[in-house]
């Protein structure tokens, strides 16, 4: 999506961490993106929910370490870098989004229009990932 000068980056509260089971992904739609969020046990990672190959829903893939395998044709995407790791030919990266958990809520850092920013109670300190061990309770 296009970014213009009226946009700003900020952390947006998305969903309860327990809504995303351990080693699974779920997709959400926000700010013009469809985003796949994964629970890796010790952290959450988020990428665009679209495989660079044929647009497959990455959120439905099997998690392999910090990668996900697209359910359509088994392209493997590194969730940290967005790179496809099991194809020899060049392929575009998947866009990734900073993700964190605060007070049991998964947050994503997104570009949003400035005039719609809603002040958070504790804004943007969520980069530090808090204790997540309790979060895998969703499993």
């Amino acid at each position: 999506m296009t970014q213009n000068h009226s946009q700003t980056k900020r952390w947006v509260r998305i969903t309860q961490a327990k809504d995303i089971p351990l080693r699974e992904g779920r997709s959400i739609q926000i700010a013009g993106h469809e985003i796949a969020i994964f629970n890796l046990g010790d952290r959450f990672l988020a990428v665009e929910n679209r495989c660079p190959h044929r647009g497959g829903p990455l959120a439905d893939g099997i998690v392999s370490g910090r990668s996900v395998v697209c359910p359509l044709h088994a392209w493997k995407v590194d969730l940290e870098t967005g790179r496809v790791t099991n194809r020899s030919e060049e392929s575009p990266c998947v866009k990734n989004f900073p993700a964190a958990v605060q007070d049991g809520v998964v947050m994503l850092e997104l570009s949003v229009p400035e005039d719609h920013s809603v002040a958070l109670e504790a804004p943007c300190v969520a980069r530090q990932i808090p204790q997540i061990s309790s979060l895998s309770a969703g499993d």
Partner: protein
Amino acid sequence: MNRLVVVGNGMAGVGCVEQILKHAAKFEIVVFGDETHVNYNRILLSSVLGGEKAADDIVLNPLEWYENNHIQLRLGVRITDIDPIAKSLTGDDGSITSFDKLLLATGSVPLIPPIEGTKKDGVHVFRNLDDTRALVDRAGQGIKAVVIGGGLLGLEAARGLQIQGCEVTVVHLMDTLMERQLDFTGGGYLKSKMECLGVRVLLERSTAAILGNGKVEGVAFKDGSTVDADIVVIAAGIRPNVELARKVGLQVNRGIVVSDFLETSHPDIFAVGECVEHRGTCYGLVAPLLEQGKVLAATITGNKGPRYEGTVTAAKLKIMGVDVFSAGDFSEKMPGTDVIRYEDAALGIYKKLTLRDGKLTGAILVGDTSDSHRYMDWLRSQEDLTLHRRQLLFPGPSEDAGLDVAEMPDTKVVCGCLGVTKGAIIEAIHQKGINTLAQLKECTRASTGCGSCTEHCQQLLKAVVPEFHEESEKVLCKCLPYSEEKLRDIVRGQRLFAVQEVLDIYGNGLGCEICKPALSYMMDMVWCGDHDEDRSARFINDRVHANIQKDGTFSVVPRMRGGVTSAKELRRIADVAEKYNVPMVKITGSQRIDLLGVKKSDLPRVWADLGMPSGQAYTKGVRMVKTCVGTDFCRFGVQDSTKAGIELERRLEHLFTPAKVKMGAVGCPRNCAEATVKDIGLVGQEGAWQVVVGGAAGKKVRKTDLLITVESTEEALQAATLFFQYYRENANFLERTYDFIERVGIEKVRRETVYASLAVQQGLRERLRKSKRLARDAWLEGDEPRQPTQFVQIEPIEKVCQ
């Protein structure tokens, strides 16, 4: 003929007798054993404790062996006295036996530390088969076991008890486990591996007393702490069993003192094994015993010459998934010692080598023992390694396995446990016409000890025997370097109930799209629902019970047994198609109706509205039975294929299989429902059914093989289900029946299903029944999804506009 009496029917005594038999017949041999068993492989007792092997599986010399070699075997008799002058011995049964030569192979006895309460009920040792049986009887779910001693034996006992269901604590006096074999770092890795398996480890605990009123209730330590226990196993070490030798007046220190020819201080008495002390050393491992046996056999048969000069010993922990190897002297203290180390904490791998003057003096391997043979060779050969210095921990890149075997000298010991050389193996292969690993094991005993040389033996067979087929060791994937057959054993034997557990203990901890679904299937097949199903390890189709399409929507195929439907069902299907705007409604090639393009979030409601069970069209499971109209309407039908097909589908539906299973039933050989290209087919004949298996009509086209011809429909269904369960248990994941049959061979399949013994057939049926009992129509989950957010589109808490 002279009489040779052997006291001790264990590996050392009988091993020596085996060597004596290789020399010209000279003796009438009598063997006394105080256990009531024939000679068995003591190293494998921990496998018996863990339930991986039965007592019969570890027998080394069956009764026939004694008979065939004219050896008089006296079991259950303990020798109480020896008269060295009259040259006779007395048994505890009162018998008196004279000898010309006497061989003492009395082994060792468990060391019982001087702590209070060791006589209480529930205190065990772990030394022989009877001890093992007693432990197996006591062990069980929820039983608290404390193992005193964190050495090789203690750890193996701990794991065995834990597999039996016990909650196990290992208590060790020192600050690190297996301190005689491992340094502090290696011990640390071992500890975390044991803990990962679920064994609790307490270090630096000195046991003060075993608590309980007559019966064990706990263990108290000198620091004042206690742990609860229902059973206590003392595995604090062994000491040579020298009682008899002392009585006779032989020279005894810690063990019976022997020369390089294994002679004792009496000219007609010899000793071998764990009871001896040679050049100040008592050995407690198997390799030295066998080397000693060879030397003694020469000495005692009048061929005195070969000397025993001591053994470089190596220890290997036999706990699956906890690889530990140690050999030589690994201490770093001696000046001039070079230490080479490698460590990967995440993978739990630790390797350490010590060198002096360019020669290997010691090796420790934890987490990866694949190179142990190389190090053993270097320790034995004392080869100068200066030129290999950069490749000590990792062999050069060009080295291939075949070359490895070819370069091995004939004198190289392949099987360290039983001392079998490459030359001996090749000789056996040529002279005995061996061409399988099983035959090789039987003939040479190679790889019957710890089993770590199996790979080398296979490589040798491959190199020497042109028709040798490697026992298909195709590994599942790089996350988990085991064949599926092996993994099934691991899952069963080690009682693993979760995919992630298997990956954590035996693999790289990550898993991938290949091994995770394969392990998920394995769990389901082995435990039939008694396991923790981990949906994250399954393909999306098996999480949402529908088949993912190229646009991320799903297809829905309700079960329509035998391809028979009704007006009511068709009406409901039509209503669903309209209500959910299903873009395509299609008749499939399997006589069913496919609703394509359904949104994930609509799935539960679609199922509810259909009111039909899942057709499993999305999974590796029972798809359908395609039928023809059989006898009800058809002019030609000779068997009621519709009814038979519906019944077959009912009996097998909702079950998972290694790959999809499509079936067919036809009422006459015209084969209108194409049963002869299905995984399982029933072909009606006049007065009979042919049960056919392994057909394909996909990427590959293959006509089925005939499994059996039977008279009644019930017999046909029974035969089909026997094959079905056999395939479930033995095929690799994603292996269709036609590939499975080509790999295994239809004769073997017949032999192990329809022609198998009643007991085997009952076993297959019983396991199928259990699975079926726990199998559910997956679409019932629509009301109660496994994960609350499985079918729900998550809405962000905060709304933002674009």
